[in-house]
């Protein structure tokens, strides 16, 4: 039953767009042959994997996490320590990274998700800071503030992916799988339960949704997404340092979700791509970079509150309306 439902949903909607997305990604290195663009695209895909997961938590279930960089970092360090320090295989590194992040998410999630609103924000924020300080201070394990070097490059079937383009294809394939899984998840019973929790926890409880379990599951799932991204990141750069996993990055992830548009899986991808590429283009302006980044953030939120995807959608509808005349139905997207 479950599998046939899954297959019909797969055929009915998400497979084609994801396949198109993957095809577009495959074409990217030909459209933008500059290796610098390819590396930016790789980082954008890695960020998109985390942001799609965080969007399930924040956009769909309405639970904020201001400490998501911690799961990303835990996985990056775990696989780094496993493969570089202890010389374990890449596959073992992957299972340790994802397993550890999931276990931490479970242990932290059980008490933390009982908190609501600003208290939940504070709880997850505190967790993120504690993990960040741990990365900095447990010098024997993590190399401390100067970071950890010598993490091997990802190898698939005995083939090391030294070519940046090859690595990009692997990351794009991982993102496509994550997209496929998430698009199906939100259209399932599970996704409807999440949206019910977001709208009203009490109402969701009344219709028999096990709120605590769903919240915990989506929290752990989003941590697993972040862990997959952390694994890909560590074996891409070959180097990890605490500064990549601090409060700033957690905030940036939230911003990617919101700028992309909450409760939209494609919005999360758009937000991650846009905000990963933006600082790279602003680098020409040197110190003005952060200023423009901050200003764009404020302006985007003030004038495009539904995010990029929502904002463009509204623009398209507005342009279409005069063409259709009075017959055009009013779309109730502002409710």
């Amino acid at each position: 039953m479950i599998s046939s439902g899954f297959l019909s949903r797969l055929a009915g909607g998400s497979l084609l767009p994801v396949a198109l997305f993957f095809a577009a990604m495959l074409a990217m290195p030909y459209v933008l042959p500059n290796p610098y663009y390819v590396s930016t695209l790789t980082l954008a895909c890695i960020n998109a994997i985390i942001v799609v997961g965080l969007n399930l938590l924040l956009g769909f279930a309405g639970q904020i996490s201001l400490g998501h960089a911690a799961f990303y970092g835990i996985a990056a360090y775990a696989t780094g320590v496993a493969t570089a320090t202890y010389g374990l295989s890449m596959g073992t590194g992957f299972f340790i990274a994802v397993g550890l992040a999931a276990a931490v998410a479970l242990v932290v999630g059980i008490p933390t998700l009982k908190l609501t609103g600003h208290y939940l924000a504070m709880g997850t924020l505190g967790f993120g800071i504690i993990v960040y300080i741990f990365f900095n201070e447990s010098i024997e394990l993590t190399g401390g503030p100067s970071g950890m070097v010598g993490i091997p490059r990802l190898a698939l079937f005995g083939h090391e992916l030294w070519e940046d383009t090859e690595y990009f294809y692997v990351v794009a394939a991982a993102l496509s799988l994550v997209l496929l899984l998430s698009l199906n998840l939100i259209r399932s019973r599970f996704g409807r339960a999440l949206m019910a929790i977001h709208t009203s926890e009490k109402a969701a409880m009344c219709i028999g949704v096990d709120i605590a379990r769903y919240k915990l599951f989506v929290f752990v799932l989003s941590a697993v997404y972040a862990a997959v991204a952390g694994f890909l990141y560590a074996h891409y750069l070959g180097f990890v340092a605490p500064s990549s996993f601090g409060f700033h990055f957690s905030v940036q992830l939230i911003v990617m979700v919101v700028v992309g548009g909450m409760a939209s899986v494609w919005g999360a991808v758009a937000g991650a791509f846009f905000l990963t590429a933006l600082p790279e283009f602003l680098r020409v302006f040197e110190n003005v970079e952060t200023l423009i980044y901050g200003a764009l953030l404020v302006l985007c939120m003030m004038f495009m509150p539904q995010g990029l995807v929502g904002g463009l959608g509204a623009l398209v509808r507005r342009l279409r309306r005069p063409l259709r005349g009075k017959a055009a139905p009013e779309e109730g997207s502002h409710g």
Partner: protein
Amino acid sequence: MVDEMDSSSFLQYLFSGLTVGATYGLTGLGFTIIFNTTGLINFAQGEFVMLGGMLAVICQAMLGLPLPLSVVLAVLGATLVGALVERIAIRPVRNAPPINLVIITIGISILIRSIVMLLWDKDTHALPHFSGTEPILIGGAALMPQSLWILGIAAVVLYALRTFFRKSIFGKAMLACSYQRKAAWLVGIGVEQMVLLSFMISALVGAVGGVILAPMTMTSFDVGILLGLKGFAACILGGLGNPFGAAAGGLVIGVLESFGAGVISSAYKDAFAFIILLLLLFVRPSGLFGKAEVKRV
């Protein structure tokens, strides 16, 4: 490491804990004032604290103004910035979902930080101590005169705010907004002015905290981040929405941090404060002095 603690080091930790704790408390107070009128957590609160310290340094060291005048100008300058933030970025979108408003305040904090960095520099600066650096010896522990300034000024600010909220018509109107915005509007309170006022007061309180702390701990364009987080932790610890809880929460965090750094490990100083905070949140999800009715699932 954990030997029997003698009374002089106990006092020493207590003094330094209360000193920084008072500024965390003032920052937390700023969060509370805005939260009460708008239901918004202003993530730029730490930047108001930074502005207090940095503007005072700019007036004193770069423009050569006398210290008291620099302090007053810095606090007024930060208050003006608070008003501008509300008018330009908050008021036009006041009906936006809370998460969008939070993102806007995060954007504002990035903006303020990078403007200060661009207009001045990335260096750390020190403000002179208000009345010398000759320590006062109490029970074998050294108390800096600046600590007395910090505790004294924090107490005065707290008392002034208490009087303001209890006695003045503006204070009462702001409290009314915090209870029921719609009802406050119906009885003729200008809710918009009250929101503007709350941004100005919280900027003022934050800047006072920044300006009195700057002589002790140095200041730079990016000190606002950690001070803001500690202030946020203080007001959560004290129970969100309770100004005096925030002040007390700040003192608790400052003292815990100081003892944690001295007795356990200075490297984990910041982690220690947050671990205690998390444990407390799990036991009492509404903070130390918050209302107990926060829903638990």
